[in-house]
Structures are given as C-alpha cells and as structure tokens.
C-alpha cells in the first residue's frame, strides 16, 4: 500500500504527472534540435576534414578532437556558466546549443564516413560532366551519403535523448528535473527516479522500433 501512496504522491497530487510530461517534452525537444544543429555542424566539419585546404582540415580536426576528448557535462557547464553567463536566453536553447555542438563532432565522423562510402566513380562522373567540386558534392554525393547515414543519425538521436539528462546540472526543465522537483517535495527518491528510468526506456524503445522500421523500408526501396 505504501507503494501506491508513493505513486500517488509522485504523479497524482497537484497534477505532478504534468511535470513529467513537460520534462519529457523538453528532453525530446532539446534532443531533436540538438541533432539538427549537430547535423549542420557535422556536415560542415566533415567537408572540412575532407577538404584540400590544410587550414580547414586542421580546424575541423581540432574541433572534433576537443569535443570528443572532454566530458559532455564539462562542455555544458562551460557553455552555460561561462559563454552564456551574461546572456538572457531560455535554458532549453542553451541545451540545444551545448548538445548540438557536442553531437556535431560525432555526426561529423558519421557524415565523413557516409561521404567516403559513396563510390569514387560518382565523383568522377560528376566532374567529367564539367560540374564543380561543390556542385558534385551537393547534387550527387551528399544525397547518396544522406541515405547511407540515416540509421546512424537515428542512433545519434537516441544517444542524445539519454545524454541530455546531464542538463540537470544547470536546470530542472527535463525529465530528470521533474523527478528532482518531486523528490524535493516528497523526500522519496526511489519512485520518481525509477519512474523516470522506465519512461526513458519506453520512449527509447518506441523510437528504436520506428527507426528499425524506417531502415527496413529504405533497404527494400534499394532493391527494386
């Protein structure tokens, strides 16, 4: 009976379930836009890594190296408390920026792999028709690379959903934040935290199944 009471205190009293719903919303919102930002950064950095220019190669190499070589939490704290310290900006947007920059380094490597996976003959065909390097990239290589990396990008989204729990270091807006708000009122740690764990698990399971379905459909359209 104690458990039902605790569940009641966690979710029902004062409509606390809405906190979890809103927390989940922010978790997904931050993850989604962070992947989009990460993709934009990732494409630029991947092109930099593959560029003929030594400067571009070095710059993107350093970015990828630093981001992958430091903890996400440290990056978030630096961005929140140092870079955006004086800037009035919504916390979830800071989250998008921090996780987007973080994810950009990983996505850069995914995109680079995707570009390299396109047969060199495709580039040669484009160039032999008089197209510039940029035109060939945009119209021929990147669309094919995009298809190849879609599963890896979906996976990165799932990783980010879990990773964004770190935003609790600076704010209470996400799913973990909802659990902490409840904890501070009920002094019960177990039920809110385990509940949050279950919610994460279910959401990620659903998204993973959807991604697997999408991948399967894409593979079918390849066979023709």
């Amino acid at each position, binding site marked *: 009976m104690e458990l039902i009471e605790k569940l009641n205190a966690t979710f029902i009293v004062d409509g606390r379930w809405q906190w979890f719903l809103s927390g989940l919303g922010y978790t997904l919102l931050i993850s989604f836009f962070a992947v989009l930002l990460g993709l934009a950064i990732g494409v630029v950095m991947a092109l930099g890594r593959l560029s003929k220019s030594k400067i571009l190669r070095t710059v993107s190499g350093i970015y990828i190296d630093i981001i992958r070589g430091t903890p996400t939490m440290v990056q978030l704290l630096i961005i929140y408390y140092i870079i955006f310290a004086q800037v009035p900006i919504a916390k979830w947007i800071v989250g998008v920026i921090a996780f987007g920059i973080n994810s950009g380094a990983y996505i850069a490597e995914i995109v680079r792999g995707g570009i390299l996976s396109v*047969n060199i003959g495709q580039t040669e*065909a*484009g*160039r*032999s*028709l*008089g197209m510039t390097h940029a035109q060939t990239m945009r119209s021929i290589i990147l669309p094919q690379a995009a298809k190849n990396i879609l599963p890896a990008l979906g996976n990165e989204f799932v990783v980010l959903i879990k990773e964004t729990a770190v935003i609790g270091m600076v704010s209470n807006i996400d799913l973990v934040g909802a659990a902490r708000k409840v904890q501070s009122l009920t002094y019960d740690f177990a039920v809110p935290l385990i509940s949050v764990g279950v919610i994460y698990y279910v959401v990620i399971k659903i998204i993973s199944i959807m991604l697997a379905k999408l991948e399967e459909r894409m593979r079918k359209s*390849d066979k023709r």
Partner: protein
Amino acid sequence: MIEVKGLKKHFGDLEVLKGIDEHIKKGEKVAIIGPSGSGKSTFLRCLNLLEVPTDGDIFIEGVCITDKETDVNKIREKMGMVFQQFNLFPHLNIIENITLAPIKVKKMPKPEAEKLARELLERVGLADKETAYPAQLSGGQQQRIAIARALAMKPDIMLFDEPTSALDPEMVGEVLAVMKDLADAGMTMVVVTHEMGFAREVASRVLFMDEGIVQEEGLPSEIFTNPKNERTKSFLSKVL
C-alpha cells in the same frame, strides 16, 4: 584538337606513362588497345584531368589544360566521358541523370534540358525509360544512358574507358551500335577498348599501348593484318 606532348604519369614509384606524344585531329576515331596495365586507361583519364599528369603538356582545342591557370571545368564541358562501370547517379531517375549537368553547369532552363534529354533518349533507343531509375535497367541500357548523359553537354570530344568491359556479352552489341552511330555522325572519339572488332570496323586509327608508351599506331587495316612491332604481334595473336 587534342595535342599531347611528353605525357608522363607516376603513381608513387610506379611509372605508368613513360612519355606519350600524340595528336588527335577533329573527327578522328582513335581506338586504344593493349594489355591490361599498359597505361591506356590512365592515358585517357589524363585527357580530361581525372588523373593529373606528372609531366608533359596536353592541349585541347589549343588550350593548355595542364596549365594551373586553366579552368578545368570549362574544358571538361567539351569532353564527354563514358566509364566502364557506367556511374549513373542511382538517386536520380533517367531524365534527371541526363539533365543534371546541363541545368547546373550550363544553366539551361529545365524544359529545354528535358527536351534535349528526350531527343537523346530517342537516339540511344530508350525513350520509354525516362522515369525509370538506373537500378531498374540492364547494364547495356545503363551504358546507353551514360552515353546520352555525356552527349547532353554537347561535347566536341567523347572519351570511352572500356565501355563494354563490364557488360554481359549479349549487351555489348547494343552499346557498340550507339557508339558506331556517334562515330558516323562525325564525333571525335577516343576509345579504350578490348573489342577488336569495333576497333577494326569503326576506328580511323589504332594505338597499341604497352608498358606506358605507344608501341605502334596506324590504320586498323595495317595494325590488325600487318603489325610491325613484336609486342603488337604477340598481343594480337592472343586476342584475335
């Protein structure tokens, strides 16, 4: 039209082209034959700078393309290339494959590019395939589309890099027929090929390459019936 002077190409320590001097005139159909590893594909790929020569000069219609100042893309517009592996764009349908370069490079309006593409599809006998995707076509059909795609840029010169080597035997004929049509229409063509019948029948000149140099060249009738070079003799005795 194509002037090659002292062309050399190294890949690391490997010397693939050891000095080639060649002059190809407008309207010529040059067939390049020779054993694999003789450098004939590399020679062809140097002509539109898909391979950058280590040494020597290449002039296309009087323009030195090996000069760093030259806009390579402008030169490539004039030279169509057909590859052994077709290299059609798998994410685009047939008409998009053909219209992509005219629209992007020549800024041709889309309706005009599509009209041109349909004429070319007609010419290669695949008018009914415009909305198909490359993966739905046979190898022979894909190669004919690849020829149409190259022709859409209205090139002055067509380069063929073993265009029938990746095809099933029964599809070789349809591709060669399209190439023969093109030759009859007066196109300047350089063809690296293992199809000796085609070289003999269509070429106005045959180059025999081995070990990175042109060992012998001449009219097909001379090369095939009365080769002078020992290597040519030995090669032809194996393939004919």
